[in-house]
């Protein structure tokens, strides 16, 4: 049936970066290769983290001293709404999807995602959602009701400008992108694994993303339904959340948090996956308790749907309802604690390499423990009655999001940057970055616990000069700039690495998983030509081992800067023991069904 649409195919792994290529941009826009889409996701995330970070610093300036007039109250309210929304939906999510679509096919030994075009569609929806959200700034005012946007404050009679309409549509659009990408990931993992890679042999990063995708598919519909109702309220005068006309203020909260709490795990589980890889490679040991780490993710995913009302302990439920949600929220601490201790046990008996990536992973253990423990405090709902919606909450979730998610993304960045670009990030400058970041982060947020305990509510654009308020806020502001500075340094480090970074080689860390098995870094457009069947959980390690013993003339197995011990030299001395006739173990895109 007819015409073939001609799409310019990228001619190199980094099309358009060189000036000689006049068609560069078009190749990025038309790309369907999972690696290019992954990079675009990551770049999107970096752009938005700068935007969201600038908003945060502006807020910190406003809060540095009491009774400050640096920002207009309305501007402050728009900024914290946009900061939260940006960081969750347009920094954390794109970064996670970036790593996921880049590395899942590589880690399972596939050459593509199951639906490459759907993959591109998902990315562009995410990006356009973000642009739609930010367009509100020039269209009469950004959303100003907080990222959870409580009813009835989000209704037209309390929020007059179009900010919340853009908020709703932006999140709907990017939500569709997230959903299709998750579908794509599920199909890819189920159908495109290399021979021998049973589900219980998946690398933990893939496993976490896989579980995560099911979680996301179940959580986002609640947000989409709530946003659809909100849009109907705002545009067509329905009364779902309009209390003046019989609607319910609490329905919004229920729907939002049925989405919102799983969302917290949606962004943290992939970070757990990254840490699981990093701890293994840089401790030179297999993960401790693979089954427990994997199963605890499933437990977290399931439990996360029974805990949403712990965001609503103060709305006036009976003690019975509160105790149910308190108990389920406490239970989540168990699988999370299991993970923390399993990672520590993974390092036990290892040979720990203190790379920057590993440093981030180790700092995560402590920071996330703090964030997790304060989280348990909230599950004990009488404590929550005191501390919810104060700076204690702000401190808590920044410890989870920055100490957990962002730290995970950074560990992943230092771990995978050589694979994505072929260049090493400067480890020495990276250490500077690490310490600046950790000091800035802890300095900013550790004292905010105290601010919350002495009674400072969150989301206030200013505060009266009460005892301790000024000094604590001022310290927090100073350290937030240290953190801002560290991000600048990171951008500088990345730029330097792209230009004159040391060449990485295909397998600089002597790693365990298959993304390092490609012939080059960055991987060629066709990831793999041929791979033997997988036998264990550390697929690439096993292949290297069997090659070493097989040809028995390999050099040291652990030499980061040397060319890797490739078990399949181009001459292919030992053909894979493959019972199946087809030469290609991962046939691509057989969706020949006429649909």
């Amino acid at each position, binding site marked *: 049936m007819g015409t073939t649409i001609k799409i310019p195919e990228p001619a190199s792994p980094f099309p358009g970066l060189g000036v000689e290529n006049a068609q560069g941009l078009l190749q990025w826009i038309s790309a369907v290769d999972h690696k290019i889409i992954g990079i675009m996701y990551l770049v999107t995330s970096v752009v938005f983290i700068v935007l969201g970070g600038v908003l945060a610093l502006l807020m910190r300036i406003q809060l540095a001293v009491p009774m400050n007039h640096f920002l207009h109250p309305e501007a402050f309210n728009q900024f914290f709404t946009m900061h939260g929304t940006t960081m969750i939906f347009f920094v954390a999510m794109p970064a996670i999807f970036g790593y996921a679509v880049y590395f899942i096919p590589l880690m399972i030994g596939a050459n593509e995602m199951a639906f490459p075009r759907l993959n591109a569609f998902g990315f562009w929806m995410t990006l356009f959602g973000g642009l739609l959200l930010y367009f509100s700034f020039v269209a009469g005012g950004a959303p100003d009701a907080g990222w959870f946007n409580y009813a009835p404050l989000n209704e037209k009679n309390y929020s007059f400008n179009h900010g919340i309409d853009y908020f709703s549509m932006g999140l709907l659009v990017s939500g569709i992108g997230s959903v299709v990408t998750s579908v794509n990931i599920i199909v890819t993992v189920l159908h495109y694994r290399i021979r021998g890679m049973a589900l219980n042999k998946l690398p933990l990063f893939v496993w976490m993303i896989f579980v995560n995708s099911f979680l996301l598919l179940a959580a986002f519909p609640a947000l989409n339904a709530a946003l659809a109702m909100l849009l109907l309220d705002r545009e067509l005068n329905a009364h779902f959340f309009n209390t003046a006309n019989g609607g319910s203020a609490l329905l919004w909260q229920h729907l939002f948090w049925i989405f919102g709490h799983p969302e917290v795990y949606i962004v943290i589980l992939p970070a757990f996956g990254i840490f699981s890889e990093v701890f293994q490679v840089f401790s030179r040991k*297999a993960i401790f308790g693979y089954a427990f780490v994997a199963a605890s993710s499933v437990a977290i995913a399931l439990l996360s749907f029974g805990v949403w009302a712990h965001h609503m302990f103060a709305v*006036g439920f009976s003690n019975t309802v509160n105790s149910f949600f308190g108990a389920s929220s406490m239970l989540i601490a168990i699988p999370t604690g299991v993970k923390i*201790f399993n990672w520590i046990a993974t390092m036990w008996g290892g040979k720990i390499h203190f790379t920057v990536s590993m440093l981030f992973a180790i700092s995560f253990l402590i920071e996330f423990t703090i964030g997790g423990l304060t989280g348990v405090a909230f599950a004990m709902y009488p404590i929550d009655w005191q501390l919810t919606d104060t700076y204690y909450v702000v401190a808590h979730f920044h410890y989870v999001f920055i100490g957990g998610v962002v730290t995970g993304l950074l560990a992943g960045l230092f771990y995978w940057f050589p694979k994505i670009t072929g260049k090493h990030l400067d480890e020495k400058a990276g250490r500077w970055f690490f310490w600046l970041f950790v000091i800035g982060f802890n300095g900013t947020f550790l004292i905010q616990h105290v601010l919350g305990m002495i009674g400072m509510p969150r989301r206030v654009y200013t505060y009266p000069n009460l005892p301790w308020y000024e000094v604590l806020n001022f310290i927090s502001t100073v350290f937030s700039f240290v953190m801002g500075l560290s991000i600048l340094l990171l951008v500088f480090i990345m730029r330097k690495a792209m230009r004159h970074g040391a060449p990485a080689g295909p397998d600089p860390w002597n790693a365990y998983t298959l993304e390092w098995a490609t012939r080059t870094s960055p991987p060629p457009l066709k990831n793999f030509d041929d791979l033997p069947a997988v036998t264990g959980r550390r697929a690439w390690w096993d292949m290297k081992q069997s090659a070493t013993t097989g040809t028995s003339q390999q050099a040291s197995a652990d030499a980061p800067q040397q060319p890797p011990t490739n078990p399949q030299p181009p001459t292919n001395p030992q053909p894979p023991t493959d019972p199946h006739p087809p030469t290609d173990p991962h046939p691509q895109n057989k969706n020949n069904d006429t649909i």
Partner: protein
Amino acid sequence: MEDPQSFQAEHINRLFNQFNIAAAGILLLVLFLVIYVTTKFRRRQGDDSEGAPITGNRRVETLMIGFPTVLLAWFFYKTLAVSAAVMPPVQASRQPDVIITGHQFWWEVSYPRPTGSPGPASSIGSSGAGSTSNSSSSANSSGPANSSGLPGSPSPASSADYVITANEVHLPVGRTLLLELRSADVVHDWWVPQLGNKMDLVPGNKNYLWVTIRRPGDYIGACSEFCGQEHAWMRIRVVAQQPQDFDRWLDSNARDAAPPTDDLARQGEALFLTRTCAGCHRIRGTPAIGAAGPDLTHLGNRSTILTGLLTTSEEDLTKWINHPQEIKQGSYMPDFMFGKDSLRAIAHYLEQLK
């Protein structure tokens, strides 16, 4: 939590302290393990070998799961106990002692007068059935003194009997009080840290909160659920008084506003009633019966306006009436065009409303 001053805050504080000790223990354990592991198993220079081939240990895993489970079960039990003490269910027959209504961005405070009681004062804090569990669980610490045992009456007082004020909430110490929380517009949240737990004010719902204050004093708090542009200036001031002082205050505030005594004040009253002010504000004893803004009947008795942003001095009142939208931008009070003299007259009138 800082310096608890109520029965409820004390209970929560105790739980929080216990939890913090356990949490500090766990954090120290993790810290110790991380430091130990990272020093002991650091790679030596030139050592490129692999780590020990350990992939798991059932016993360790069991410990990892079992220990937190036991600890959490214990804290869950404590949680149940504290929540039962702090938030006992409210019997249908129990009348609230204070009704607090959240508005963008101020608090309306009204004191209902149960029918059959001689005056508004003595019945405040009457012991309903719901508060008994409070007293029993705090027997050792001078528990709530429920003085006049008048049973709450189901028939509500007519609104004319209410004492209505704003932002500064006077409460008697020593009595177990039931606060009823409502919202006139969006979700707000009542929180005075030293007096215990917070509670949302949800439009369309009525929420209840128990509070038994220990000592007289000024306690500050703030709206803790983001409620719009001026959420930051929706602060709370609770004035806790000895019961007899409180009763005196209530009696004096139950009276109508005293008529102005000097000329400037009389001029101010006339302006107040003829210009738009009376459309939104009430001053009992005058034709001003607006309900959109705070009740001003005894404004001079309060120490601050705008939930603490300015004082009730004539100077501050002048400043505010002159340019509301400059001082509190999100408030619903519009800018007016008053002459200097009119401003002074209105401010003077309001200031002397004691």
